[in-house]
Each structure stands twice: as C-alpha cells, then as structure tokens.
C-alpha cells in the first residue's frame, strides 16, 4: 500500500513538472494514451479479459465529442461527457455480446465489433471519412477557462487523467475489485459462491469502455481533430502493447508503457523509416528479456533486493 502512495505522489509531481520540461502537447498526448491504457488494463490485468476492440471506444468517443463541440456548438465539458457516455453505451453493447465468451474468442468478438464501428466511422456522413473531423474548437471550460491556452488545456487534461486514474485505482481496490479478482482466479468457484459473473464482467467492461472514451474525447480536444486512426484496429493493438510493455496487472505499468510508446512514436518520427524497425525490436527485446513489463520487472527487482514496494 505504501508503495502505491509513493507512486501517486511521484505521478502528481511528474504531472506538475512535465509541461515545463517536455513539450506540453506531447505530455497531454501521453496522458490521454496513459488513461486509455489504464482503462484497458482494468479489463486485461484485473478481469483477465483481452479486448481487441478498444479502439472503438477511444475513436467513437472522439467523434462524438467532436460532433458535440463542433456540430452542436456545446461547451467542451459536455463534449467529454457525450464521448464518455457514448463509449459507455457502446461498451455495454459490446460487453453484452462478448462477455459470454472467453479467451481468444472474446478478443475476436470485440475485434469484429470494432471493425463494424470502423466501417460506420468511415461511412457516416458527419465523420468526414478518411479526412476526419478537423479544427474542433477547444472552447471555454465551464464558460470561463480558455482552453486554447496550452497551459490551461494541460492542467485540464491532467485533471481528467488523474480523475480517470483514480477511478480505476479505486475500482481495483474495492469490493467490486475483490470479486473481479476472484473471478479471474477461479471462475467456476466464483459462480458456485453465488456471483453472477457475467454481470461483474459486464460492469468492468463498461467501466473500461467509458474511461477509454473519456481518454478519446480528451484527445480530440487536445488535437482538435478526430480521425480514423483512433478507430483502426492498429490502435486496439497499440493499447495492448502499451499495457504489456508497462506491465499487465500493475497499477502504474500502463502509464509507463504509454509514455514509452508515445515518445517512441514522437521522437522516432525523426528517425524516418527506422521507427517501425526500432519499435519491432523493442517488442522483441521486451518479450524475451523483460516479460513482466517495465514496471513489473522493476517491482520484482525491488522485491528481490528486499525492498518492499
């Protein structure tokens, strides 16, 4: 427990210092993806469900938020709300269909549904096809805080992230989280104790989808655009990678994973065509050498050297 408190403090400090050291828009992007990965980890790491369609939540929330803000002229907070709620509803639909299946089959159903969402995003008139929705206004938060100012936007994103992360952290360590853990450990036994496991999984799924949506909606405000990239299955794959890279089932792992991957994409962009090769090499090395993910390995190292994390 103590380790976690230290983690929170470090996180907070980093969040406050980062925009003065690193380019703030990049940090915002990292925060959005970190939230996305944490939401995903709630499902994979703590419920044992591998969704291969999480991009659908990220992306569709982005479009919804963009439409609310741009098309309907609503303020940004409503945009976020619309995105999150939309993703939650979508999550409920996905979840209801997929929950009854396990393992790789679960992953594949979510992939199939996400492909449908992609298809719709491409075909719907308001999404702008492959050009996406551009020039989304950031607007004024609650009517007064001008979000077009980078620092205002930054601290707003940080707040959103911390809120989302807190929800996840709390959910993991809640009565609900206990049941999830039990289900992951031994599902038939959980059933025989009288738990309707499907309903617990569904709630976890909806929660994860909603938070992924929150991340997507926020991202739309940050970049002022919503595009197909965020609904493409590559994105679903990327979030798996972020989580694995950081450490599945560790609280802070996905944040680290997202940071590494996003930075890699960003700074790697200047390496030109070698980015993909480099990214590939990192995965290979990670799997072969640091299987528990970065945070997982560090935790193990600390444990071995006798420091209780």
């Amino acid at each position, binding site marked *: 427990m103590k380790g976690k408190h230290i983690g929170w403090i470090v996180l907070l400090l980093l969040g406050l210092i980062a925009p003065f050291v690193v*380019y703030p*828009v*990049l940090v915002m*992007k990292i925060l959005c993806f970190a939230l996305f990965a944490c939401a995903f980890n709630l499902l994979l790491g703590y419920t044992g469900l591998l969704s291969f369609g999480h991009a659908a939540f990220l992306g569709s929330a982005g479009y919804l938020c963009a439409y609310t803000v741009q098309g309907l002229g609503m303020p940004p907070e409503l945009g976020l709300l619309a995105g999150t709620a939309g993703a939650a509803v979508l999550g409920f639909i996905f979840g209801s269909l997929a929950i009854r299946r396990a393992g790789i089959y679960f992953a594949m159903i979510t992939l199939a549904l996400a492909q449908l969402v992609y298809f719709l995003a*491409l075909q719907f008139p308001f999404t*702008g*096809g*492959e*050009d*996406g929705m*551009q*020039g989304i206004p950031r607007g004024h938060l609650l009517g007064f805080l001008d979000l077009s100012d*980078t620092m205002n936007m930054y601290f707003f994103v940080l707040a959103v992230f911390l809120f989302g992360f807190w929800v996840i952290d709390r959910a993991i360590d809640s009565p609900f989280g206990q049941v999830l853990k039990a289900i992951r450990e031994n599902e038939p036994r959980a059933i025989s104790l009288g738990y309707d496991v499907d309903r617990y999984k569904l709630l976890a799924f909806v929660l994860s989808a909603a938070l992924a949506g929150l991340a997507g909606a926020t*991202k739309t405000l940050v*970049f*002022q*655009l919503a*595009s*197909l*990239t*965020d609904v493409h299955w590559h994105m679903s794959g990327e979030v798996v990678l972020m989580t694995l890279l950081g450490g599945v089932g560790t609280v802070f792992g996905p944040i680290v994973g997202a940071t590494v991957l996003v930075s890699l*994409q*960003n700074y*790697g*962009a*200047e*390496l*030109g*065509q070698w*980015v*993909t090769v480099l990214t590939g090499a990192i995965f290979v090395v990670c799997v072969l050498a640091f299987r528990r993910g970065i945070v997982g390995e560090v935790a193990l190292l600390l444990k071995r050297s006798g420091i209780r994390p």
Partner: protein
Amino acid sequence: ATNVSDAIVKLGVLTDMSGTYSDLSGPGAVEATKMAVEDFIAKEKPDFKIEVISADHQNKADISANKAREWIDTAKVDAIVDLVTTSTALAVMKVANEKNRVSLVNGAGSTPITNEQCNDTTVHWAYDTYALPVGTARAVVKQGGKSWYFITADYAFGHSLEKNTSDVVTKSGGKVLGSVRHPFPGSDFSSFLLSAQASGAQVIGLANAGADTINSIKQAKEFGITPKQSLAGLLMFISDVHSLGLDATQGMYLTTGFYWDRNDETRAWSKRYFERMKRMPTMVQAGDYSAVYHYLKAIKAAGTDEAKAVMAKMREMPVNDFFAKNGKVRVDGRMVHDMYLAQVKKPSESKYPWDYYHIREVIPGDEAYIPLSESKCPLVKK
C-alpha cells in the same frame, strides 16, 4: 538586413517516410527540399540561415498535428513542407494557420485544401484531385473513350475523384455507365474488374491510388480486360508506372504536373535529383523543390519570414523555374500552372531507364484547376 526571426528560416518536411506514400513523397521530398535550400543559398546568397528538419507522420493526423505544433512552438519552424495524405495536411494547415506559419502542401491532393477548408497561409502546389482526373478524362473522351465505368476507393478522395471525373466525362459528351466501390486498402480487384468488364464500358477509370491502382492495373491485364477496354489512372505517379513496368501500363493515359524528360530544364534538374536518390522524381518531389525555392525567394523579397508578408510576396511573384512557367499562387492558395496529359509508352518505345511517357497535350493552368468563380473558399471575394 532582413528581418528574419533568429536570422534562421527553418523548414520542416512532414511526410510519410515509410508508409504507403513514401515512394511518391517520403525521403525524396526531404531530399528535394534540401536541394532547393542548397541551390537557393548558392544562387541567392541570402543573409539568413536555412535549416531543414523532417519527420515521419505515419499518415496519422494526430501525430502530424502534434509534430507541427511542437516544431512551431519549440523548434521555431517557419514553414511545413510536403504533407502527404489529406487528413494530415488539413490538420497541419489548421495548426500552422493558427500560429501564423506557412504550409506548403504538395503530397496531399484533395481539393478542399484550397476550397472549403482553405486558409491564408497555405499554398497547394503540384496537383489536386480536380486537375488530374479532369485533364485525363477530357483527353480520353476526346480520343473516343466515350463510355466510362469507375472502380473507386470507398474513401472521400476516391469519391471526389469519381465525381470530378464523371462531371467532365458527361460535360465532354461521354457517358458514365456505373461504378463500384471497393474497400481501402484492397488487394484483389478481380471481382471489381469483372463488374467493370460486364458493364461493357470503353474506359475503366481507376479512382484509387497507390497499391490499389497498381494491383487493379496488374490484374486487369491478367484477366484480359486490357487492352480490350482501356484504363485511365486518375491519380497516378511515375513511381507507380515504374513499379508496374511498361508491359502492364502501356497505352494508359494519365495527367501529371511534372515529367522529368519533358525538356532540357526538367532533365537537368531531374538528373541531379537522380544522382542523390537513384530514382526519378515524382511531381510531388519536384513540386516540393519548386515550392520551397519560391517560398525562400519570397522571404528574401519580403525581408521577413512573417507568414502573411511572405504569402503576399509568394502571390505577387510569378513562379518561373523548371517546374512551372508563369505559375501563379492564387488568393485561395492554389499554385496554378500547366499540367500535362501523358500516355505511357509501349515497352518497345522506351529507350532508356525511366523513359515512360509521351506527353500528348499541355493543359493550360486556367483549364486544369477549379476556376475561382466556382471556388467555395471563404478568402475568395465574389
């Protein structure tokens, strides 16, 4: 001395370095930009320094918007060059405009760039998805290809290619028999080709791009559709012809903004480019050179790198180089220049490497691009 910020003009080439479009722009675009800078320094001896940086936007709008912002905010980039794929171009144009920086768009082709979504710090150089199909369609109908059928990528650019072409075909007295929309990216086009074949159209218009176009052409030959029916590539680059070979592409019509072997001037520049890249330039890469050179000249003339002032100079000065003769940058940002209708040579006609085209016709710039009178750009006062 000129009033250039930090006495440095910084150019950021933002392009697809490794993805689908990396052959038609990509590393070649970076190289062309560098050539333009070197040539400019050698010839004009400016009193400011010029730097070029580049990045791979991986065809993702968020990455390119982020990179553009970062470049402008932290690296003090003055202009962003190339911008292949429309979504990334639109995203960057917006960011650059907001921060009063110039976008020199070359790779992306969609008409909204200078139309609905135009802004006063964007220039669109080499081609667009109006000029290419329109030139081709008009010529092909004139040559007797009256009935058309489209194989269209089910994407906004595919749709707009199809629509623009259809309009011209009907206007020129031809007929459109139908179209089929394929998912993007596809790999097998034989089904769509069969539909096209069944339509009995004389001309099959390929309203797609890159690997899709290449595979369509390849498979059309395999299924014996060509040469009975002829193909018209609506968005084709010399890099596509090169990778397909003349055997598969011979006889096709296409429109281009630049062909390396057109005259001595183009040949001279292209040979220099070839020495560096081991490939001949596409119109995008040549356009990057031309646009960058013109931009730098405008800075020198304006005595500042402030975007609005530079834009004013760019509009004022005609473009005269190996790429364009008397080209001019319109108020909506479109650089109007002549386009060329090319027909792909038969293998037997090709005498040396990269000897691919007969230039059949010069399409005057005023006819090639959407006239200002039809423009939906808010900057155009009517």
